[in-house]
């Protein structure tokens, strides 16, 4: 452990404070003690603590109440409750309220030291992965982001399945379909989640640069290489390497990549030291790899090496039922970022979004919503807020001989989609009662 873990012992019994203080200090922790909850709160305010060891029974404010107070301001600190046999029930209550664990006095030294070591490891990993944690929290709301259509549900099931294994995955789909998001989802659900996922866009780099990007280089390996640099392979050690646009790499790089994947070792550019890595590889491409193999531009052996498991992301136009959900998600996202009071999309504007073909997929949709949010005014986005091209397209395509029924059907569908098929809410918005709405849904054969 190369970082010192700080630990605060809160107990009204002096002998407990001293012996734990000595014991943990020997183990290399930074230890503080407090004789009651009030002193503890002062210390907690003044300094950062990684672990709090709280006695459950103390005069004045007890450990459980102290835990509650601390939790209100600090969600991250690890709290361990110390208890006597008589109050194990209360200790269990503390677990429900977010303590890491509890220990029964007197402690078995084996158990206590294992408990603290585990907690310390937890903290070290957490600190190393603040970035990753942010990614995870981004991902945890991901079902919302990628959509809820049957196609995307199927994709998310695949993500869960493949995450548990360690096999190489190829994610295929048009650009803008969210391939990196899926790669991150796999990583975040995998046992490697406490280590980094390192993305590399292979398509964006020239061959020589890509080589040093992936494998690193020694000082002076080439002009401009002024110091030694770790490559992405090394950075992804024990984690996941995400190679985007794998279909674009040169023959030479294909060969080198294959060699690393087979031997799990490589040397830095300009170096001779062999470096071993343990990585999981996820690749993504919008190219037809089979065709590339046939044409001889992609190595067949590499193709078989990486193509263990494939996830295909359908283009947005093939899952239009996701559009309202995604669009609404981006409205909320940019309302927050831009601090605007726009909460919704008018049904006319949504109609235009649903009709559009989205060759740029989710990325294009997000850009369109972002732009609309810049020009739009509360309370909702209107057709004229959308990028000019979209609105124009819609006008051209709009069949002007729409029957009244056609218009009604479309309007009802939009309202339903915008309200996530909440019947009561949709009926209210439409100004009709629920039974009428049910009848219309049946009449127009509308489906979720």
């Amino acid at each position: 452990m190369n970082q010192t873990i700080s630990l605060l012992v809160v107990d009204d019994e002096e002998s407990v404070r001293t012996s734990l203080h000595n014991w943990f200090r020997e183990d290399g922790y930074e230890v503080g003690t407090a004789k009651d909850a009030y002193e503890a709160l002062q210390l907690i305010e003044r300094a950062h603590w990684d672990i709090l060891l709280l006695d459950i029974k103390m005069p004045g404010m007890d450990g459980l109440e102290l835990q509650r107070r601390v939790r209100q301001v600090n969600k991250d600190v690890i709290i361990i409750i110390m208890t006597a046999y008589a109050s194990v029930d209360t200790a269990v209550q503390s677990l429900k309220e977010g303590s890491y664990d509890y220990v029964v006095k007197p402690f078995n030294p084996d158990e206590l030291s294992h408990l603290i070591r585990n907690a310390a490891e937890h903290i070290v990993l957490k600190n190393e992965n603040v970035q990753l944690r942010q990614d995870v929290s981004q991902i945890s709301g991901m079902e919302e982001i990628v959509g809820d259509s049957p196609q995307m549900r199927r994709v998310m099931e695949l993500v869960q399945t493949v995450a548990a294994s360690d096999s190489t995955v190829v994610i295929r789909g048009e650009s803008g379909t969210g391939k990196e998001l899926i790669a991150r989802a796999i990583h975040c659900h995998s046992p490697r989640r406490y280590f980094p996922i390192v993305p590399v866009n292979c398509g964006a780099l020239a061959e020589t640069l890509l080589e040093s990007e992936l494998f690193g280089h020694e000082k002076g390996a080439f002009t401009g290489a002024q110091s030694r640099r770790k490559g992405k392979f090394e950075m992804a050690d024990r984690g996941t390497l995400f190679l985007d646009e794998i279909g674009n790499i040169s023959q030479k790089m294909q060969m080198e990549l294959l060699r690393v994947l087979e031997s799990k070792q490589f040397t830095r550019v300009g170096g001779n030291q062999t470096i071993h890595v343990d990585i999981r590889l996820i690749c993504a491409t919008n190219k037809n790899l089979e065709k590339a193999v046939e044409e001889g531009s992609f190595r067949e052996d590499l193709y078989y090496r990486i193509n263990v498991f494939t996830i295909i992301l359908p283009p947005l136009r093939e899952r239009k039922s996701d559009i309202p959900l995604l669009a609404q998600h981006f409205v909320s996202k940019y309302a927050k970022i831009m601090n605007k009071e726009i909460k919704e999309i008018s049904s006319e504007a949504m109609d235009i979004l649903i009709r559009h073909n989205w060759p740029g997929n989710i990325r294009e949709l997000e850009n369109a919503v972002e732009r609309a949010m810049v020009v739009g005014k509360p309370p909702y986005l209107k057709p004229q807020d959308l990028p000019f091209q979209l609105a124009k397209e819609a006008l051209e395509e709009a069949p002007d001989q729409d029957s009244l029924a056609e218009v009604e059907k479309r309007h009802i569908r939009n309202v339903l989609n915008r309200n996530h098929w909440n019947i009561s809410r949709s009926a209210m918005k439409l100004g009709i009662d629920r039974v009428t709405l049910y009848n219309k849904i049946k009449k127009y054969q509308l489906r979720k």
Partner: protein
Amino acid sequence: MSCVYIVPLLELRPQTRQRLCVAIEQQTFWSAELLDVPFDGQFAYDQVREQYHSSQILLGLKNLIKPGTDKILAIVPFDLFIPILTFVYGEAHLDGPAAVVSIYRLRPEFFGLPPAPELVVERLIKESIHELGHTFGLRHCRNRGCVLNASTYVEEIDLKTHEFCAACREEIVRHAGK
């Protein structure tokens, strides 16, 4: 020259005393010798726990030597505890004068296994040097072979050597030389 005084509260074979002293001298660069004092540690007995309070033993030991110059190590046959823990193999004043080691849980018999006197001597030497390391201000070491590696299971004691690793040895030289 500063000295580590050893107070055995049990019968140690002359051979064992000899090995213990040599090991301590080699590892700490201090001289080591046995101290003949009337000290039985009975005052530290806790009737409720039926164990001996190791922190109290340390306080008793501290009074037996010149403060500031020497160190003292007791080797006891009985089970030790500190109030918050069910037992301890030993205890030491971090950067202080006194240390205590118990052989109670170092014997295979404690776990229902056949006796192994040689193994017990090895464990005793390791734990003695470990606790003395603490009196020189050293904390636990992550190096598995180092005598200052924390042992929570008795089998873990067998995995380490009775020697300080290079890094800890450097520390010892710095502290012991003072």
